[in-house]
């Protein structure tokens, strides 16, 4: 029993980390430009496909391929905002058109990658060859540990960047008051591009990390995006902390629920949690943070 619980917890934290990474992207973009990027999940798919090309196609070692695939995904994200967001940046009430455009972009991206890579799913090897390792009598899938460790490192780096560097503070200043940031000389268009690059790069990383667990398909991003979106709402849709706690909560609930209650309702549990939150605590776990944004 206990061993099983530990195994489930590790699996839940790993899946939750994936949701957290994508949720972070939702939250960073939302707090910066007040837009929900509904194509956020597709960047997980894009990251995974870049990894497929680099590892299965070009036979590069994973430790080179992983950061490169992530950066490439971020570059696609920067391009994405250049097309979708920048043209209407200064227009009043641009939020709705931009959000609808991201929905369209999501469909478009999935179709493009389906065309390029075809409908047959790809299977990426795990970073460690072993299928499972035994630690203290508990069998653990090593990719889960990779996911948890890499996510922890990335979140730490992101936090350091946003809180300890001048560029990070300039990003925050832009999110808080864009016009005043411009008066200071902060190049707001660049800051927006950077936020999109970071957000989509993190989304790409989620896809890269989860690819060995699932398979890589053009539609893989949509399921992740839905649950990440739920995570962001549970976390309050306003803070980094919220996105992470929300992601881990959804990941754990889903994993425990699938085993202890019913496997066939695996995908339903996150939404039950979401609905409960929307009814009883619509501002999410750390909802008060949102009000600090001007």
């Amino acid at each position, binding site marked *: 029993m206990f061993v099983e619980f530990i195994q489930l917890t590790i699996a839940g934290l790993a899946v939750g980390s994936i949701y957290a990474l994508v949720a972070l992207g939702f939250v960073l973009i939302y707090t910066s430009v007040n837009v929900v990027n509904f194509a956020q999940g597709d960047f997980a798919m894009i990251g995974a496909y870049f990894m497929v090309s680099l590892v299965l196609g070009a036979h590069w070692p994973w430790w080179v391929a992983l950061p490169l695939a992530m950066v490439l995904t971020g570059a696609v994200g920067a391009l994405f905002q250049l097309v979708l967001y920048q043209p209407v940046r200064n227009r009043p009430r641009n939020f709705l058109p931009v959000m609808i455009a991201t929905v369209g972009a999501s469909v478009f991206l999935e179709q493009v990658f389906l065309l390029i890579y075809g409908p047959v799913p790809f299977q990426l090897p795990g970073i460690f060859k072993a299928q499972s390792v035994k630690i203290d009598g508990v069998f653990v899938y090593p990719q889960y540990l990779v996911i948890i460790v890499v996510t922890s490192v990335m979140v730490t780096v992101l936090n350091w960047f946003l809180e300890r560097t*001048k560029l990070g*503070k*300039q990003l*925050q*200043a832009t999110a*808080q*008051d864009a*016009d*005043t*940031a*411009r*008066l*200071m*000389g*902060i*190049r*707001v268009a660049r800051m927006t591009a950077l936020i999109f690059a970071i957000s989509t790069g993190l989304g790409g990383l989620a896809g890269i990390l989860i690819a060995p667990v699932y398979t890589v398909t053009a539609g893989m991003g949509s399921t992740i995006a839905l649950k990440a979106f739920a995570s962001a709402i549970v976390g309050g849709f306003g803070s980094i902390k919220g996105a992470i706690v929300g992601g881990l909560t959804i990941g754990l609930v889903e994993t425990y629920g699938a085993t202890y209650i019913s496997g066939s309702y695996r995908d339903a549990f996150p939404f039950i949690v979401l609905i409960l939150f929307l009814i009883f605590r619509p501002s999410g776990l750390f909802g008060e943070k949102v009000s*600090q*944004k*001007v």
Partner: protein
Amino acid sequence: MPNMLEVRNISARYGNVTALHDVSLTVGQGEIIVLLGVNGAGKSTTLKTISGLLHPVRGGITFEGEAIDRMSPESIVRRGIAHVPEGRHVFPGLTVRENLVMGTSNRKVTRAETESDIERILEIFPDLKRLYTQMGWSLSGGQQQMLAIGRGLMARPKLLMLDEPSLGLAPVIIKQVFRTIKSINEAGMTILLVEQNVGLSLKIAHRAYLLETGRMIRTDTADALREDDGFRNALLGVTADE
């Protein structure tokens, strides 16, 4: 005195609403110029057009001989115009220190330069010292105004534009703000001040302009306007019943 800033016959609008008609003004090196006018006269719009948040639909603006009316705010502040906006607009989620550091975003600075500039600002506004690590939102109106002016100075501007720095402050604090503006000017800073406090601003300014519904209707030296009871009463009459 050579003109540092020249605004020539500009018109500006928000959508279909024309807020400035044919407005001209000049600011010479070392001057304090005050731009007066009642609510909605177009004072803030004038500053926004100079700093690039808005582009004039007619007319031109030159700064040190260079046309700046098509430039972005990011470029204009790099050329040496700092605009401290109405309502202070301190970054609420950044500390006092971080707000000051943001002021240096218009140029490449070393860490040592930033530190020595912050030192200089804290000498001008000693009250900010004990608030150093507090968040912007937690400051009082007066403290936010000091921070906003300090942040503007962190840009090392050649021209400092202040939009209603006395707005919403207690009378003693207002006096203090005006004294500070005067002393910053005496240290060599050229200042374009937007104000509704006619008495105090005419005391510290060299020249004044008067805007009314988007038109420049009067300009003279501060000394002449101070003596002109008709001028003072016209403005004070309106500002008094606010």
